[in-house]
């Protein structure tokens, strides 16, 4: 037999510990599969099962508690040729439960060997997620108030495609491990074992009892038919391959030369659904076509379908530093909740600030130059009020002009949407 064991680092387990048997069975499984050592990695968790990586002459990664499956997934995604074997105890199973579930759901081609010995061996025999309620363990009475989990049942409901369970002393374990490794997809093999240093000192657990436990629990012996589906890595790569267009960065060349353009601060006060952010984007594009520097900050609720939507835009021939609004030159007041969000601002507006207020909107007292517009009368839908307001701004040459706006709309929209947008804007010229 070709052994993968590291002769310089023999197993160091307590006498009688099942982990040692499993170490040898894993070695035999490797031999049976004739794995190339340089295409095999053992990823280990924390605790006694976390020593496995040191016993073998294959690649090894030993990380923090409960996270072994996460490293294993990263390795497998990065190098699909790797055979990735994860060893984890019942401790890692508990603390890393989310990763076990995610691995079952995902079906990436990894093999997880769970070395369930019903307690935390290394820290003094405390209870774990698999400790029986009536066991005597190092955490006094605490296990008596909880029940153990059946990871195989959980894995099946979480979508695992291959589940096996046996005694760690099972003579067929090498074959079983080999079967799990050969399976293309996520495979789990739960081994039941004896922690002779801790658990079996106070609990009657013998090879025979382990066999009986396997007989008494629902049978798991490999492929789960109902969960069969493509392996995640292959599926991912097939889906990703269809994404073949790299999104190039927006780049806008100056097309318009303006004389004596002064820094503009535009504030659009609206609500969700009024396309405020799109309008803000268009103002910025308009500025960019005139060779200006621009910035835009948006303020909207986490629940995007209701509440205020505010866009704050700077357009400047100089480099923009502070991106906050200091002295607005244009304010579009398009909804009450938007106005409420910036109500303090109105008292500070200068007399030459252009405020465009929709007829239905109430604004606080201000010295600014307020123009009212009745979009409803112009038969402009609420979702187009922001866009229509840009038409008014352009007509009055506040911050943007008609040429800037046309360039911006053409660049931001398809030809069809551009035509519709222009029709909306034309309606405001009648106002």
């Amino acid at each position, binding site marked *: 037999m070709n052994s993968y064991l590291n002769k310089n680092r023999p197993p160091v387990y307590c006498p009688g510990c099942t982990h040692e048997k499993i170490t040898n069975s894993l070695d035999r499984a490797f031999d049976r599969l004739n794995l190339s050592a340089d295409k095999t990695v053992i990823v280990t968790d924390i605790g006694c099962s976390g020593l496995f990586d040191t016993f073998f002459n294959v690649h090894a990664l030993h990380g923090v508690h409960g996270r072994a499956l996460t490293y294993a997934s990263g390795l497998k995604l990065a190098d699909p040729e790797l055979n990735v074997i994860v060893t984890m105890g019942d401790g890692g199973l508990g603390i890393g439960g989310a990763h076990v579930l995610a691995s079952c759901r995902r079906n990436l081609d990894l093999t997880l060997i769970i070395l369930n010995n019903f307690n935390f061996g290394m820290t003094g025999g405390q209870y774990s997620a698999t400790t029986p309620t009536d066991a005597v363990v190092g955490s006094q009475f605490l296990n008596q108030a909880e029940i153990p989990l059946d990871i195989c049942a959980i894995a099946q409901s979480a979508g695992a495609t291959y589940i096996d369970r046996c005694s760690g002393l099972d003579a067929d374990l090498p074959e079983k491990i080999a079967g799990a490794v050969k399976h293309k997809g996520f495979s789990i093999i739960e081994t039941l074992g004896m922690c002779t240093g801790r658990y079996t000192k106070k609990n009657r657990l013998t090879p025979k009892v382990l066999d009986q436990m396997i007989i008494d629990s629902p049978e798991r012996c490999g492929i789960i038919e109902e969960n069969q589906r493509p392996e995640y890595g292959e599926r991912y790569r097939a889906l990703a391959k269809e994404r073949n267009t790299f999104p190039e960065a927006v780049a806008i060349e100056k097309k318009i030369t303006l004389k004596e353009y002064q820094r503009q601060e535009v504030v659009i006060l609206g609500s969700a659904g009024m396309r405020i952010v799109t309008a803000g984007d268009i103002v910025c594009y308009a500025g960019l076509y005139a060779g200006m520097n621009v910035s835009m900050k948006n303020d909207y609720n986490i629940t995007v379908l209701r509440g205020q939507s505010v866009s704050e835009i700077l357009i400047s021939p100089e480099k923009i*530093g502070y991106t906050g609004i200091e002295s607005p030159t244009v304010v579009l007041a398009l909804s009450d909740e938007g106005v409420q969000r910036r109500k303090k601002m109105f008292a500070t507006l200068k007399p030459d600030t252009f405020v465009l207020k929709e007829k239905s909107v109430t604004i606080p007292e201000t010295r600014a130059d307020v123009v009212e517009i009745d979009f409803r009368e112009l038969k402009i839908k609420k979702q187009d009020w922001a866009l229509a307001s840009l038409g008014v701004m352009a007509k009055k040459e506040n911050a943007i002009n008609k040429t800037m706006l046309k360039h911006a709309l053409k660049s931001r929209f398809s030809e069809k949407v551009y035509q519709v947008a222009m029709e909306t804007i034309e309606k405001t010229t009648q106002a």
Partner: protein
Amino acid sequence: MALSFMEGNEALARGAIAAGCNFFAGYPITPATTIFNSMLEMLPPQGGICIQGEDEIASMGYCIGASMAGKKVLTATSGPGISLYSEQISFAIGSEIPLVIADVQRLGPSTGSATRGADSDIQFLRWGSTSGVPVIVLVPKDALDCYVLAVHAFNYAEEFRCPVFIASNKEIGMTKESFDLESAPLPPIVERKLFSGDTYLPFEAKPDAAPPFLPIGGKTLVRQTSSTHGPDGYITIDPEVIAKNQDRLREKIYNARKKITLFEEDIKGNSDTLVISYGVTARAVEDAARILEIKGKSISTLTLKSLWPVPEELLLEKAKPFKQIIVIEMNLGQYVNEVKRVLCDKKIKFYGQMNGVMISPEKIMEVIENE
């Protein structure tokens, strides 16, 4: 000259791509989510991999695994995610796993405010791991910086085999702005130094350098471990071996601090005040200095783009001619004590603000004028 127009987060993602990043794993969190979105748009067409982890801990685990297989990896989160990353960050620091972590900071503590900015995590990034090994933290002031610093971050991660943080801020990450992407001053790409010799010991290195790398899955067997290890990657309890490795982890970063120093300055010969700042705050500081200049008061500014390791020589050199130093931060004073430690014979004034809004140029002028 065409100007690009994008959020700081998109710029950071584009910088990562420019640096050769080919793996991303992350978990959605405001205000960092659009980095994930951008990577998901950009990596697949380039043959790269982009994954959404089941949580932040897993996302970092995927990054660690992929990096050990030789990928150039990025993840992005905000303060609450950095909290969850912490155990994996310690692993990456101690076991010399290159990766770049974008922290688009928001107002803390805890879940705090998802959509309000602050430079909340400046000390957390430095000390949020076990053992106190130095880390590298870069800090952008605008979208252009996000683009350029992402490349620096990857270069440092590869050279020093460590996690490198980009401490962005909601006010940069989610603010769209114009900048000249085409002529951005990107540094040449630094690739991971691969081992070329006979017997590979995964952690054998020069006293103040990172060990040469070989990937898991290559011809030579590689060991990686989060446990205290010797050059061979096996657990050790030998005090001499442990001490040597601890010293090396510290010195490979600390001794390289001049190389890692990134900054901008506007030093005026006729001013007696130097304002030191970083991040989005630096933009308001620079505005304030410009306005004061017009008013006839000359103020010099130093904008730090690398906070950790502390650019000690830079601070000493730049501060030397000034009578007064003012430090402005978008928190209640996380970095000012580092400045005080280095400039121990200088008078140092501080202003900090932690209320969910940016410090305005007006406020900064008030601080400067009330000397």
